[in-house]
C-alpha cells in the first residue's frame, strides 16, 4: 500500500534524514576544503586591515553598483526579487519556522500567510523570467551548463510545489506537500555538489574579495 500519506511520511522521515545527512556532510566537506586550502602569507605592506573591509564586502556586494545596475537592470532586479522572495518564503513562513525550530530550537516570528503567498507568486514569475533570460541573453547562453538548468529546475520545483501546496491546488494535499518536501530534499542533496553551494560560500568569497582589496586600500 503506498498512497499519498505514506509518500508524505517517507519524505518527512527516512528521506529527510538521508537528505539532511548528505547536505551536512557535503557542505562541510566543501567548506572544509576551502578553509584547509587557505592563503599564503602576504609579505606586502598593507594599507589597511583585512577583516573590516572583508566583512563590509560580505554585505555590500548584495547591492549592485549604479553602473552595473544601469547596464544590467534586468539581471539585478529580477535576481534580487527572486532571491528575496525565496528567502522570505523559506525563513518567514510559519511551517518552515516550525521545521527549523524542531531541528535547531531557534524560532522567530512569521509573516502572515497571504504575504508569503504573494511573495511566492512573485518569486515564481521572477524565476521564469530568469530562465527566459538565461536562454536568450548571449552571455548567459554561452556560459550556461546543464547544471545551471538542473539547478533552476530544482529551485523552481521547490517554489512551485510550495505554492501549489499552499493554495491546495493538488489533491490529495499530502501528495503535493510530499512533493514539496521531496523537491526541497533534492535541493539539499544537490546543494553541496552544485552552484547552490554559493548560498554559503558566497560569503566566504566576498570576504576574500573584500580582504584582498581592503588591504590595498580599496573597499570592493
Amino acid at each position, binding site marked *: 500500500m503506498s498512497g499519498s500519506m505514506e509518500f508524505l511520511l517517507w519524505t518527512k522521515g527516512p528521506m529527510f534524514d538521508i537528505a539532511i545527512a548528505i547536505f551536512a556532510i557535503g557542505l562541510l566537506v566543501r567548506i572544509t576544503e576551502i578553509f584547509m*586550502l587557505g592563503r599564503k602569507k602576504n609579505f606586502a605592506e598593507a594599507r589597511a586591515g583585512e577583516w573590516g573591509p572583508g566583512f563590509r564586502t560580505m554585505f555590500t*556586494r548584495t547591492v549592485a553598483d549604479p553602473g552595473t545596475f544601469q547596464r544590467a537592470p534586468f539581471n539585478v532586479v529580477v535576481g534580487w526579487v527572486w532571491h528575496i522572495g525565496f528567502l522570505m518564503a523559506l525563513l518567514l513562513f510559519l511551517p518552515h519556522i516550525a521545521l527549523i525550530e524542531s531541528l535547531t530550537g531557534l524560532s522567530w516570528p512569521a509573516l502572515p500567510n497571504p504575504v508569503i503567498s504573494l511573495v511566492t507568486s512573485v518569486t515564481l514569475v521572477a524565476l521564469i523570467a530568469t530562465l527566459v533570460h538565461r536562454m536568450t541573453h548571449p552571455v548567459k547562453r554561452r556560459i550556461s551548463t546543464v547544471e545551471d538548468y538542473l539547478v533552476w529546475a530544482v529551485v523552481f520545483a521547490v517554489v512551485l510545489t510550495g505554492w501549489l501546496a499552499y493554495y491546495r491546488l493538488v489533491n490529495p494535499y499530502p501528495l503535493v506537500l510530499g512533493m514539496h518536501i521531496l523537491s526541497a530534499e533534492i535541493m539539499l542533496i544537490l546543494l553541496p555538489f552544485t552552484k547552490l553551494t554559493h548560498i554559503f560560500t558566497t560569503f566566504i568569497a566576498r570576504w576574500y574579495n573584500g580582504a584582498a582589496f581592503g588591504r590595498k586600500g580599496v573597499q570592493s
Partner: protein
Amino acid sequence: MSELTLERGLAAFRAEVDGPVAAFFSSCVHCGICAQACPFYLETGDAKYTPILKLEPLRRVWENDFTLWGKIKGLFGLNHKVTDEMLAEWEELLYDSCSMCGRCSMVCPVGNDLALMIRKSREGMVQAGHAPEGLIAASVRAIQTGSPMGLQWKTLAVQIQHVQTSSGLEVPVDKEGAEYLVLLSSMEIINFPEYLEAITKIFDHAGVTWTLSTQCFEATNAGIQIGNKDIAAQLVERVVAAAEKLKVPKVISPECGHAFTAIRWEGPNLIGRPYPFRVFHIIEVLDELRAAGRIKTEGMETDRLSMHDPCNLARKSGVIQQQRNLMNLVAENFVELKEHGKFQWCCGAGGGVSSNERAEPLKMAAFKRKKAQIEEVNPERMVTMCATCRTQLEEGLEEFNMEIPVVGLTEMIAEHLVEKN
C-alpha cells in the same frame, strides 16, 4: 633542454589553487554580470569574452583535483580535462582579451576576484607554453637586457644629460643614502622624457633627496604581465638589490600602472620576504609633499580637463584621492568622468595587452568604452599617470580623430611650480 609542457602547466595551475580560488569557483552562479564589467565583451559583443569563461581551465583543475565531487566524477571518467588544445584556444581569452583591470572583481555579486584568478591562470599558461609571443619576447628582453624594450643605461644617460642641460639641475645617480630611489619605465624614457625632467624639478623644488640607480632603473615587470613568478621574481630582486645597495628607505614607482602593483603588492611575495624599504607611486609622493606644504604652485590650467584613473593605480592599489588633490592644485576646470576611481573603465592596454602585438584590434575595440566615457564629458585635454594608459589614450584618440591631447599629471604639476629666485 627542458621545455614547457602541458604537464608543467597543469602542475602550475594546481599550485595556484588556494582557499579564495576554491571559494570563488564554489560560488559562481553563471549570472554573467562580470561580462557587463568587461570592456572586451561590451565592445565586441562576443560572449566568449565573458570573464568567468576565461577562467575555465583553472576552474576545471580546481574541480577535478580539489573537490570530492570532482574526484568522484573522475573515477567514472565524467570530468572535463584540461587539454593542450583547450589551452591553445584559451590563450586569446586569457591574454589578448583581458587587461586584468579588475573591474569584474568589483561587480561580481558573489564576490569573485576574477582578476586575481586571471593572474593565477597565466602562471599555468606560461608553464604550458601558451603565452603570446609578444609577452615572451618582452620577458626575455627584460631578463637579458634589463628592459622589456631592450633599452640600456646609455640611452637613459643621454636623457639625463638633456634634462640637466634644459633644467640646469643635477639628476642624481647612484647617490647612496638618498631618501628615494626613483625607478623609471622604458616607455616613459622613450615616449615621455618630460617625466624625468618634471620630477627633477619637483624634487629640487621640494628639497627631496633622491637618486637613480645605474644597477636598476627599470620599474616595469614583464614577468607579472606574462604571468610567471620566476621571471617576475628575478626582476623584483634587481630592484631590491639596487635599493639595498644605495641604502634608500623609499622606492618610487613611476607613472606606470602595472609596475606599481608589481613592486608594491606582488614583489615581496615573489621574493618571499618583506622589503627593507617602502614603496610609493610618484603620485602618492607628490600628494604627500603637497600635504606637507612642500610643493608651491602658481597659476591654474583653465581649459576643461578630465582624468583617467589607471586601473592598477586606482582600483588595484587604492590611489584615488591623491591625484584629485593634485589636480585641484593646478586645474580650475576639472571634470570627472562619470565612472571613475575604483569603478573607472580600463583604457584597454593593460595586463600585457599592449605588449601583445596580435591583440591590437581587441585593444582598440576595448578602448571604445573609454572613448565613450571621454565623449560624455567632452574635455579639452585628458590627464593621466600611467605611460601605458597615456600611450593608449593618445593612439586611440588619434584613431578616432579626436583632438584631445593627453598629459601626465607629474609634468603638469612641474609646470606650475613657483620659480625659485
